C-alpha cells in the first residue's frame, strides 16, 4: 500500500494518472512516476510525500486532491482510497477495482467505465458515467455510488452498469441512455431525453419529458427514438 500526500497547494492543477499499479513498484520508481504540473513534467516525489507500507495493491490519497486530475484513470484492479476530494476525470475508462472518495468528485467521474466500483461519500459534479467527447457509448458496466448529490448530465449514453445517487441529481439524467440502471433517491430535473433502453428510478421529484408513454411498467420512451427505456418512481 502506498500513501500519497500533497506537499503543498498546487498553483495550477496537476494531472496524475495514479492507479493501484503504483503500489507494485519500488519507492524509487513511485517517486519518479511522471506527473504533469501545468506544462511541466515533474516527478511524483517532487509534489507529493510518498510512504509505502506492505505490498497491498492499494493507494491511499491523504489530503486535498481536488486539484489533481485523472486519478484512477484506466485502472484495472486494486483500490484507491481518497481521504479528501478529487479533481476531474477520476476513474475515467476504469476497467476494474475500487475507488472510494471520502470527499467530493469533480466533473467526468467514471466516464466510459467498463467495470469496477466508485464510491463517493460527498457530492459528485457533472457528467458522471458519460461518453467522452465524440464517443458513442458511456459507461458499460460497473457501479458508481454517490452518497451526496450529483450534478447535471448523469449517465449520458450509458450502456450498462449502475449509478446510484443517494441525494439529488441535476438536470438531464440518462440522456440517450441505452442500458443499465440509474437510481436517484432524491429529486432531479429532466430525465431520459432520447432514452433507448435501461431504467431510471427516482424517489423524489423529477421532470418527465413530453415524449414518454405511461404504462404498467412505468413511463416508457423516448418515443422520438422508439425507445424502450423505463422511468419510474422508486
Amino acid at each position, binding site marked *: 500500500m502506498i500513501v500519497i500526500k500533497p506537499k503543498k497547494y498546487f*498553483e*495550477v*492543477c496537476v*494531472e496524475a494518472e495514479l492507479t493501484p499499479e503504483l503500489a507494485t513498484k519500488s519507492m524509487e520508481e513511485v517517486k519518479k512516476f511522471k506527473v*504533469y*504540473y*501545468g*506544462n*511541466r513534467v515533474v516527478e511524483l516525489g517532487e509534489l507529493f510525500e510518498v510512504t509505502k507500507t506492505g505490498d497491498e495493491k492499494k493507494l491511499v490519497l491523504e489530503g486535498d486532491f481536488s*486539484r489533481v*486530475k485523472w486519478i484512477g484513470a484506466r485502472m484495472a484492479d486494486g483500490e484507491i482510497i481518497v481521504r479528501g476530494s478529487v479533481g*476531474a*476525470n477520476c476513474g475515467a475508462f476504469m476497467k476494474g477495482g475500487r475507488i472510494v472518495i471520502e470527499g467530493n468528485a469533480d*466533473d*467526468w467521474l467514471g466516464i466510459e467505465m467498463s467495470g469496477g466500483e466508485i464510491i463517493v461519500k460527498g457530492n459528485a459534479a*457533472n*457528467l458522471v458515467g458519460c461518453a467522452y*467527447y*465524440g464517443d458513442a457509448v458511456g459507461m458499460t458496466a460497473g457501479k458508481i455510488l454517490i452518497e451526496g448529490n450529483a450534478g447535471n*448530465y448523469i449517465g449520458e449514453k450509458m450502456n450498462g452498469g449502475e449509478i446510484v445517487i443517494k441525494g439529488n441529481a441535476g*438536470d*438531464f439524467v440518462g*440522456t440517450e441512455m441505452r442500458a443499465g440502471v440509474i437510481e436517484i433517491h432524491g429529486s432531479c*430535473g*429532466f430525465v431520459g*431525453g*432520447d432514452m433507448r433502453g435501461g431504467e431510471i428510478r427516482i424517489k423524489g421529484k423529477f*421532470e418527465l*419529458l*413530453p*415524449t*414518454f*408513454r405511461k404504462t404498467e411498467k412505468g413511463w416508457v*420512451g*423516448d*418515443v*422520438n427514438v422508439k425507445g424502450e427505456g423505463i422511468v419510474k418512481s422508486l
Partner: protein
Amino acid sequence: MEDVICTFCGSVCDDGEFDAEKKKVKKFCRLGSAKFSEKERIKAPMVDGKEVSYETAIEKAAEILVNAKKPLLYGWASTANEAIRLGVILAEKLRGVYDQCASVCHAPGTLAVIEEGLPGATLGSVKNRADVVVFWGSNPAEAHPRHGMRYSISAKGLLIKDRKQRKVVVVDVRPTKTAKMADLFIQVKPGYDYAVISALRAILSGNADVVPSDVGGVAKEKLLQLAEMMKNAKYGAIFYGLGVTQSRGRDRNVENAIKLIQLLNRTTRWVIWPMRGHYNVVGAGEVPAWEVGYQYAIDFSRGYPRFSPAEFSAVEVLKRKDCDAALIVASDPAAHFPAAAVKHLKQIPVIQIDPFPNMTTLLAKVVIPSAVYGIEAEGTAYRMDGIPLRVKKILETSYWTDEKILEEILKRVEKLKG
C-alpha cells in the same frame, strides 16, 4: 470607398460606403455605425500602468508567458484569422490553453455538432430559398440588426422574392423586438426549450398522442400549428441564439433541435444555423480546428492538443484557478465573465492586446494597443455562416496589428525558450 466590410457582428455586412473625409459609414446599422465611429483608444503600450514602447511591452509579455505553468490565451473573436493562427501556434509553443469567446457564447452549439452534426446552409441559400424562418432564442433586431433585411426576414431572394412570401416564427421567453416582426410568436417558459423541441419531434413523427396539453408553457395546439408549418415549408431555416445556448440544457437544446432538422429533412428541406455574435468568432474556431483539431477549450500542456470544455474553457480554467497568467486578445473577459471567474483574473498577471480600453485594461499588467481590423488593418474573417471575407484597411494608423504584435511575441517566446 465602397463594399466596406463591417467588423462588428456575425452578419459581417460587406456593402458599406465609407466617407473618408467625414469618417462616417453609410448603409450600416447602429452597431456598424458605432464600430466605425471614433472613440477612445488605448494610447500607448503600458506595463503596470506606465507607458512604454511596443518592444518593451512585448518583451515583458513574452517573459510572463514563458514563466507561466499554464498560461491562458483567450479572446480572438474580434480579430483576423492571421492573428488567430499565430495565437494558436503561440499557445502550442507555450503549452498553454487556447480558448475563445464562443465558450461563453455559441460553443454549446459546437458540442451539439459533435453529437449530431450541423445540417446548415449559407445565408445566401436562406435568402434565396427559405419560405419559413424560425428564430429560436435569437433576437436579430437587437443583436444582428441587418440580418433580417440582408439574409432572412425580408431579404429578396431568387425563389422567395420578399417578406410576403416568407413566414417568420419567433420562439422566445419574452416578446422581443424580433417577435414583433413575426407571423407566429411562441412564448416558452424559460428552461423548457428542450422539452418543446422533443414535443415537436414527437408530433412530426406521428406520436402527437403522447404530447400533453401543455409543454413548457406552450399549448399543444400551438405546437401542432408550428409542426404543421414546419412540415409544409419547402425550405425552412432555424436560426438559434443565446436563448438556447446560455440557458438550461445549453448544448442539449441545440442537439435536440438538430435532431428535429434531421427528421424534417426526411420529408422536406430544413437547415439550422447559429446566430454567431462577433464578426470573426467563426474564425476563432475554424483556425484552431485546422491547426490543432479543435475549436476551443484546448489545452497544450502535454505538447499536443486536448479538448475539454469542462476543464479548459476559460471560465472553468479561471474558476478552478487553473492558470497562472493570461493573454487576452480582442476581448473583455473582466466585463463578460461571471464574477467568480474574474476574481482569479485579478490575481494573475494579465496581458491585454486590444484597440480599446475596457474593464480588462483596468486589471492588466501589460497592455498593448492594436489597430482595428476592417478599419485600420486588413485580414480574413469568417461570417457567421463560414463565408470568408477579407476585411479592409481604410484608414492609416500607427498602431501595430494584432498579427504583428503576436508575431513579435512569438519570436520573443521562441528566443526565451531557446
